[in-house]
């Protein structure tokens, strides 16, 4: 089976050694790890990179989740409480309710693909940037 490998990233490189000792060739920020090389989670959480990751995740997921829940529950509520409206025929015997129902499929697939794309482009590189703060990806 394949193990996925992290995509290349243009952010901070991970360096070898426990706590990152700054050298002249390697002027990056120090690793957020303790003396034993274990990640310092509080420092990572408060780091700019992690806050940025969380911000990127929230601005996509929160509105989309609220949106799809409202759209789905609204659709169910319309079917339950406004059956006459939903029975209005639009195209042949296809009525508004059936068309809205099929649209639920369309929106679900669209949102699924857009999240996958967003995660690949905006979240994964940022995850890599946060992981580069630790000695995590060193073999």
């Amino acid at each position: 089976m394949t193990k996925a490998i992290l995509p290349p990233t243009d952010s901070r490189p991970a360096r070898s050694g426990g706590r990152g000792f700054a050298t002249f060739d390697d002027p990056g920020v120090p690793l957020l790890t303790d003396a034993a090389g274990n990640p310092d989670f509080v420092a990572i959480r408060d780091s700019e990179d992690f806050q940025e990751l969380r911000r990127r995740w929230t601005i996509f997921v929160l509105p989309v989740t609220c949106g799809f829940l409202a759209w789905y529950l609204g659709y169910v509520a319309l079917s339950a409480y406004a059956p006459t409206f939903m029975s209005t025929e639009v195209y042949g015997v296809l009525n508004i309710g059936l068309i809205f129902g099929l649209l639920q499929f369309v929106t679900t697939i669209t949102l699924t693909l857009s999240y996958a794309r967003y995660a690949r482009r905006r979240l994964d590189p940022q995850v890599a940037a946060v992981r580069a703060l630790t000695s995590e990806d060193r073999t």
Partner: protein
Amino acid sequence: MTSGNTVINLSVFAVFVLITLYVVYRAGSRNATASDYYAAGSSFTGPQNGVALSGDFLSAASFLGISGSIAVNGYDGFLYSIGWVVSWLLGLMIISERLRNTGRFTLGDVLAFRMKQRPVRAAAANVTLVISLFYMIAQMAGAGALMALLLDVHTKGGQAIVIAVVGVVMVLYVLLGGMKGTTWVQIIKAVLLVLCVTLLTVFLLGKFGFSLSSLLETASENSTLGPEVLQPGVRYGGSPTNSLDFLSLALALVLGTACLPHVLMRFYTVPNAREARRSVVWATWMIAVFYLCTLVIGFGSLALVGSKAISEAPGGENSAAPLLAFRVGGAVLLGIVCAVAFATILAVVAGLTLTASASFAHDVYANVIKRGKADPKEELKVARLTAVAVGVLAIGGGIAVNGQNVAFLVALAFALAASANLSTILYSLFWKRFNTNGTLWAIYGGLGSCILLIVFSPAMSGTRSSIFPDVDFAWFPLGNPGIVSIPLSFLCGYLGTVFSKEQADPEKQAEMEVRAMTGIGSGLR
């Protein structure tokens, strides 16, 4: 249906069982560690696991039940299936990646991450066991009913034998193959199922000149309901209580799916969060295609078989898809559809058995009884013993409720998952102050209220379709408790946290937050 079909049905089914058992045997022969048994060594790829996820999720209730429900209730049956498609967005965006990053084998790993291990793990295991058993018993009873329909087995004894055979095969899958073998069963079954419904759908659409509208028109002409079958309100219309009941069901379906224990456990069979995300994308595609096809099959069976013939057939609305298959493809196609339906039941119960055994062995035995110091070999032994015990319980339960209307157990499983699991997962991931006490309140509040409300609902007593039709102790008007129990569990979690003096461990909380988002500290990459 004649006895000639029985031979075809049985042989197609036997071939399926033999092939899958061989695959399971080959896949599982190197099963050695706990990680292999519980999570297939996390070695599956996203697409493989995605197909298996859809296999785990699409039960016989969705195949026969939904297509039948569409054939009989029309629009309202279709509405049911939409919730199951939409719900995967929640699994995709919020649950799958975080779960993969935080836990190892069970839901208990995640919930107990920053809490006191023993009480939280015990509670998580309780929920998993209750949901798995309810869901499994409903599936087993379904197997009995299906037999009556497909193999002309009408005696209670004969159906009991069928249920026992299903139970034995499912335990064999789990014991021989562990998670790896079971996953391959899911993959084979999901591919067969989706292939089967897709071909049927293309055929049906072709018969009506690829016009959905003309198919729907013929369907409404052949329904006793007439054009009303295409409009909302057949099943859930009429009274305000019915409408509210439907909203409640919809809420449980959309929030519960991604929290079902056997679905959650699938996220551990992939190596990292990105693969977990890919698996949900694949599962969503499979499931969306599947339910679009059931829409066509449901209305197609209405158009070609007619609602009268469907409701008069043994097995009632569950027989819509098999009757349609017989109508368009004769005994052979019927045999294939029946075998696929059986494969579906078998695979779903195997997944549930594995989940229940993992939850008991990993959470209760290793962490509660042995306080985290269990010998891995012993833990595996306990897991296998639990699988056998769960199998026996499911066979017994399935035989006991055979013939009862237990469809509500499936909906109840979703309501339980949404009430007990969703609130605790969300709180422990996103609410800093959330603590052990809050976790316990949320889990037991959701679980308890859900079960209590269902006991005092019309599903148990008071109406003709209840389990106890002759007595009436139903004071809760809805058949689906979700609309009350889901918010209640969130409220319980909040109050339990606020009212306890216990402080959340800020370092553990930071660790969980970072790990859930990035996988740092989990050893995954």
